[in-house]
């Protein structure tokens, strides 16, 4: 079984700090890492490989040359090889242009039986690239997957975490499976994995390599355009009280908010 996992390099949120005064994010000194939600997609692929001897995993990403680090991390977790789409022409791509570019590369490197992608990246937070890319490849789309129950050469049966419950569905391969965090606990990289990742080949593909014209990709190929950016204050500087000064008064304050918000009308008996 040939598996492709789509991964993205993102700013590490753990290293993000908030400026106390302005309430905005301090961007300096932010490190890059493999998108945390992509780890679950890589983990899912590696578990399939552990259960099926004939499996190969290719980690695919698009980004600057430094994004090789994210691809290598996926290899260190257990992917066999990697592919990075890197070209100035890809820069500034929106989700549509990104999906188009990834789909072209997947077609060239494939065919794959199974595609995996993270639910969304912690920087852009759109979650659009996976389904958009799968549609271009004619693959079944299985989003919000909490468990892969069965996988054969022809089909996959998964459980999806949707509003109010879990849905079980079955789809023909090729399929794009998009896990949610609930699916698994990503492994830590072993030392031997890290060594292998260091030596592994990460193929670099440019726009020319995948015959992508400039107007199909990057900023020029994008259908959406950021026209303005603002940095809102997250801080509210609300009122502070201490329970030690009187717990009944503190409870009273919150009860007043419940009343203002009409929370007490809907209340039901326990």
């Amino acid at each position, binding site marked *: 079984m040939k598996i492709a996992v789509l991964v993205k390099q993102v700013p590490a949120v753990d290293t993000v700090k908030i400026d106390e005064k302005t309430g905005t994010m301090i961007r300096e000194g932010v490190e890059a890492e493999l998108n945390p939600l992509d780890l679950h997609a890589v983990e899912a692929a590696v578990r399939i490989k552990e259960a099926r001897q004939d499996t190969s995993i290719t980690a695919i990403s698009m980004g600057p040359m430094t994004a090789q680090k994210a691809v290598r991390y996926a290899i260190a977790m257990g992917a066999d090889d990697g592919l990075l789409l890197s070209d100035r022409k890809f820069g500034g791509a929106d989700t549509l242009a990104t999906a188009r570019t990834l789909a072209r590369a997947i077609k060239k490197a494939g065919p794959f039986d199974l595609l995996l992608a993270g639910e969304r990246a912690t920087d852009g937070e759109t979650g659009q690239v996976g389904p958009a890319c799968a549609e271009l490849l004619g693959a079944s789309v299985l989003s919000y997957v909490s468990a892969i129950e069965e996988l054969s050469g022809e089909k996959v049966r998964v459980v999806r975490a949707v509003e109010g419950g879990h849905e079980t569905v079955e789809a023909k391969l090729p399929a794009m499976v998009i896990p949610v965090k609930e699916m698994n606990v990503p492994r830590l990289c072993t030392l031997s994995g890290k060594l292998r990742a260091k030596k592994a080949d990460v193929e670099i593909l440019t726009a020319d390599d995948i015959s992508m014209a400039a107007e199909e990709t990057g900023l020029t190929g994008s259908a959406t355009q950021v026209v303005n950016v603002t940095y809102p204050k997250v801080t509210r500087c609300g009122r502070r*009280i201490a329970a030690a000064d009187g*717990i009944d008064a*503190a409870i009273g304050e919150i009860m007043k908010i419940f009343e203002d918000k009409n929370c007490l009308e809907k209340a039901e008996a326990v």
Partner: protein
Amino acid sequence: MSAEVWTLAEVRGGKIHPVSRELLAWGKELADALGAPLASVIVGSGIKEQSASLAAYGADKVYVADAPEFENFKADITSATLAEMIEKYKPSILIASATTQGRTVMPMLSSRIGCGLTADCTELAIDRESKRLIQTRPAIGGNVMADIKTKGRDPQMCTVRPKSKRPLSPDASRECETIEFAPKKELLESLVKFIKFEAEKSVGLPLQEAEIIVSGGKGMKNAKNFARLEELARLLGGSVGASRMAVDLGWAPYSAQVGLSGKSVTPRLYLAFGISGAVQHIAGMSGAETIVAVNQDPEAPIFRVADLAVQGDAMEMLGGLIEAVKKYKGLQ
């Protein structure tokens, strides 16, 4: 007259879901600014009879694609059908809800028809000069707000967060035109087969639709304490949320996790008990209308985003509140 503004009604369990009404409230503002008709498009099975109910919430027209194949929401055939409808009726704007359905079908539609899509918008407006849609969305955990315009082919498409706008007051006297759309047979063959659905036994609405969220973190100290959050949630008609830490400790299911790697929520009231407020958590809840935080630590970062910050023991405050609400309700 300007091209129509469309909203994608959501069908769950064979019924038009209330989130569809919120979408009409979004669409109404845009349609009025453009002087365009507002239409809702419904793709489902056996939903024709319910379609007129959307008129009361602002729809001038309802497009209905009703076929048994649409039972149990199939993203692929829904996307294919919407593409055909768009080709035929040429709307200028299409708004869907950022639910698991909307977030799956809209990107598929976007690449199918080659139109741009903006995720998870919190504000929509019409640019006065260009008459184009300005879509505002948070990124990087709400630390950046980006205004986005769609260029190229229409429709301009976006998803909006559930619960970020109230439906219009229903006007039962309003009527709408219903247009039935019969999709081609070959469009109705889904690659995905529905097997079963198991409802989750959780308190209240799914988090993203909840108006009140009672959330807890590590400060709840143990699973038994954490379970008491449910009692307050039930009393207030709300849902239970959790920090990543509480989920990792097994006190709450992943579906309850609020934050960057969980859910982004926008309730009217968010109560945080024993949550210190890591950047990732705040990213998922800072859009709440009112935030009340209870924490022992006076330096807890959550206090910075709280409208009311109570320094104190989370369990003691929770217990006191449960009693107070019960008393208010005459339940004891």
